[in-house]
């Protein structure tokens, strides 16, 4: 999963960030907002915002990006979930209270939580599990792969569901617990709003979930609103209404936060503003653990880079410490593993790319002039990647290469997966795995048919090891697969990026409302004042 396109006008916003930063320290009340900077609103209305529209409907079988997760993860629930407030991904019961897994990792039996109601008032039973899995397959959008290997969903009684897979899959439980996994929807609601598109039109502006909040307003491009669900089975949320207007300019968003109109900013705070917020004692800054990585791709079909030794030399020549310091100050660290942070314990899948400029210098000095000109690309919606690309260009320039920095729209970057024509020599772009399984990252990034294998590099050895690891679930197998992928010299997991958020001091529970595998969002029911 790549980070969602957040704004095409971030360059414009960047022009004003300096001016906004000047006002960041002057948190004062007023500004037409509902809340002052120092006092919690008494009406229990939480004012948050989106930076740009989520871009896709808040339909959990379609939504496949970042910022809109606040809608899907607060209105819907799956059978399992991940524990909040910890950097270690830990599966917890959600709508299933317990489960068993067969020895071959093919049959999963779930005992369902009783007395759970959907937002339409109907009870949650095992029929919903089958209906929800069927719908995900029928809609067949990005997250549908998670149920593509399901052979059957049987419902022996209203509170038991048995899911049988065609093949062993050690990652299946992580699919069920992750933010993009199958969510339970009311079978009654699905049937009555099915239309010609499997409820897609209806779920653009409504929800059919069991979550602590229900979607009460969805004006695409303008505003969204959630209201607490009275019939929720869990602890009742403190905030009764959550307003989420769409703000299209980062500097405007910061001004509204600084004046107290917004309770928090949950994502896409520009690098230049991070330092300012970290130094501002009037607001609460949170550097929360995540699985977001700034990844660097090398194109194995271009000039000098066709040779594995040259690719490895190029990666070794990069000063990643400097890149981290200058791009992700306060919210990123140099990555030490092939996979994004927190996917595996730190001792596994170590990334060994020691800094050494000498090999590349030697290669460049002997290379023909035509091979010394390269392009480093970045996703145009990612201003941080632009900084990374600029730094890479400068560093490689000092070693004799002429590296041009070029931006590419998100749709073009994705287009290289099907047609690599026009792809650059190198690419810097952030992303995160759908679930905390190393397979979800390794397969899509390193396998030949991976959806994020933008520059078409692969290793038969790594592919075979991933197939083996998927069945065994062994961390050692995933480490071996990562080592084989890393040996190609095509990838460098450069930076572990944290989820950086800022909030008014009166907003309580932010750390405990954050899930390591769910970027840009919080479980709103865990927030209070």
């Amino acid at each position, binding site marked *: 999963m*790549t980070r969602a*396109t957040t704004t*095409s*006008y971030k360059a*414009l916003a960047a*022009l*004003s960030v300096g*001016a906004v930063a000047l*006002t960041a320290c002057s948190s004062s009340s*007023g*500004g*037409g907002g509902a809340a002052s900077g120092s006092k919690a609103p008494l009406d229990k209305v939480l004012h948050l915002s989106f930076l740009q*529209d989520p*871009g*896709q*409907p808040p339909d959990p079988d*379609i939504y*496949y990006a970042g910022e809109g997760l606040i809608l899907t993860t607060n209105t819907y629930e799956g059978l399992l979930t991940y524990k909040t407030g910890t950097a270690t991904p830990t599966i917890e019961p959600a709508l299933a209270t317990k489960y068993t897994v067969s020895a071959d990792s093919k049959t999963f039996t779930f005992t369902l939580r009783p007395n759970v109601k959907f937002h339409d008032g109907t009870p949650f039973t095992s029929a919903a599990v089958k209906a929800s899995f069927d719908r995900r397959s029928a809609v*067949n*959008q*990005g*997250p*549908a*792969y998670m149920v*593509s290997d399901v052979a059957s969903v049987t419902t022996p009684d209203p509170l038991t569901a048995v899911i049988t897979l065609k093949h062993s899959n050690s990652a299946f439980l992580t699919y069920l617990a992750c933010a993009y996994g199958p969510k339970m929807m009311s079978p009654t609601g699905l049937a009555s709003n099915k239309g010609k598109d499997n409820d*897609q039109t209806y779920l*653009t502006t409504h929800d059919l979930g069991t979550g602590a909040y229900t979607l009460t307003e969805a*004006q*695409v*491009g*303008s*505003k969204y609103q959630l209201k607490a669900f009275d019939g929720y089975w869990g602890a009742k949320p403190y905030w009764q209404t959550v307003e989420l*207007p*769409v*703000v*299209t*300019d980062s*500097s*405007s968003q910061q*001004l*509204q936060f600084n*004046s107290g*109109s917004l309770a928090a900013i949950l994502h896409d705070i520009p690098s230049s503003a991070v330092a300012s917020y970290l130094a501002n004692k009037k607001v609460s800054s949170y550097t929360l653990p995540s699985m977001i990585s700034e990844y660097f791709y090398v194109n194995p079909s271009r000039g000098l880079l066709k040779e594995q030794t040259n690719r490895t030399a190029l990666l070794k020549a990069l000063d990643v410490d400097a890149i981290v310091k200058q791009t992700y100050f306060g919210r990123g660290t140099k990555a030490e593993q092939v996979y994004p942070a927190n996917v595996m314990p730190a001792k596994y899948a170590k990334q060994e790319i020691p800094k050494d400029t000498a090999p590349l210098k030697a290669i460049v000095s002997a290379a023909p002039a035509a091979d010394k000109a390269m392009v480093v690309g970045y996703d145009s*919606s990612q201003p941080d990647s632009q900084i990374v690309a600029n730094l890479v260009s400068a560093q490689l320039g000092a070693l004799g290469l002429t590296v041009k920095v070029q931006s590419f*729209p*998100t*749709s*073009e970057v*994705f*287009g290289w*997966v*099907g*047609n690599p024509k*026009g792809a650059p020599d190198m690419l810097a772009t952030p*992303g995160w795995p759908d679930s905390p399984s190393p397979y*979800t990252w390794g397969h*899509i990034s390193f396998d030949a*048919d*991976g*959806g994020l294998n933008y520059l078409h590099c692969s290793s038969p050895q790594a592919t075979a090891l991933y197939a083996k690891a998927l069945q065994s679930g062994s961390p050692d197998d995933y480490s071996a697969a990562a080592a084989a992928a890393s040996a190609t010299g095509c990838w460098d997991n450069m930076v572990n990026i944290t989820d950086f958020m800022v909030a008014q001091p009166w907003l309580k529970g932010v750390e405990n409302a954050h899930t390591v595998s769910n970027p840009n969002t919080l479980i709103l029911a865990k927030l209070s004042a």
Partner: protein
Amino acid sequence: MSALLAKRLGAIVMISIALAGVLFYLQKISPLDPVHARLGGQASASAVAAERHRLGLDRPEFTQFVDYVRGAVHGDLGDSYRTRRPVSTDLRAYLPATAELALSGLLIAMVLGVLLAFATTLRWKASSVLRPVLLLGASTPTFLLGIAGILLFYSKLHWLPATGRSSLADVPGGPTGLITVDALLHGRFDVFWDAVQHLIMPATAIALGPAVAIARVLRSSLVSDQRSDYARTARAKGLSEPAILIKHVLRNCVGAALSMTGLQVGLMFAGVLVIEQVFSWPGIGQYVAQSIPVADFPAISGVTLLLGVGYVVINTVVDLLQAVADPRIKV
């Protein structure tokens, strides 16, 4: 008049077909892939192929083009890849916001333009202040005006809201989609005042440039006609200079200013597209800005066609207004 209308209708058809053709050609040669962008990295090859077929992107370009034009004639502009709703539905949702902003901007531009023209023609003392202020505003990029306005009037003075169309939750939902108009129709003066407050900054930001352009043209005509025989006769009859300008000279001079207004409306739309980003104004500028990075061609085409048709319609209205203002002009 009917000949003019027929000619302009023909122009709309020709411009629409030409724009649609250009957009389809650009789509064909573009390396962008909306299907992969829409489905994400984990989508299987079969899901990508199924989606490509469902969207009709696996058909020959010419067939797609003919179908698109045929659909557009019937008001069907296809479905947005991003919002997954019909583009016509999206435009109906987003257009009122842009129309309200553009019309407010136009109103401010015309008032300021006439004011500046009169002030400089009659050499009012206020013109020594008004002129440099407006010139400064007009020579500043629109987005910078917007940001400066937010910093001053929202962040520092707390006079005006920063973003959006309204701060209120219970805004009347129709019938026009223009919040100011709908609020008055529903007798909701609180909503009206709130909407006006939200409009002031963005509308003024897009109005300053056109205001100066209108003022220049109008002033030039006013000064020229002030020296005409009929103005001299009016002066000889004892009329004051303001009365001469308003009662006699203005009507003769308004044609050129109206022409300039028509041209400025087109430029104003360009300004609107940028200013909507700065003020999080949920109009077609924001819609198209979010559609471009994900190669949402139906949405981009819909907005382009709408702006093209809108430009012809506005110029037709300006031509008709010129004829009303000056009977010597035949349409």
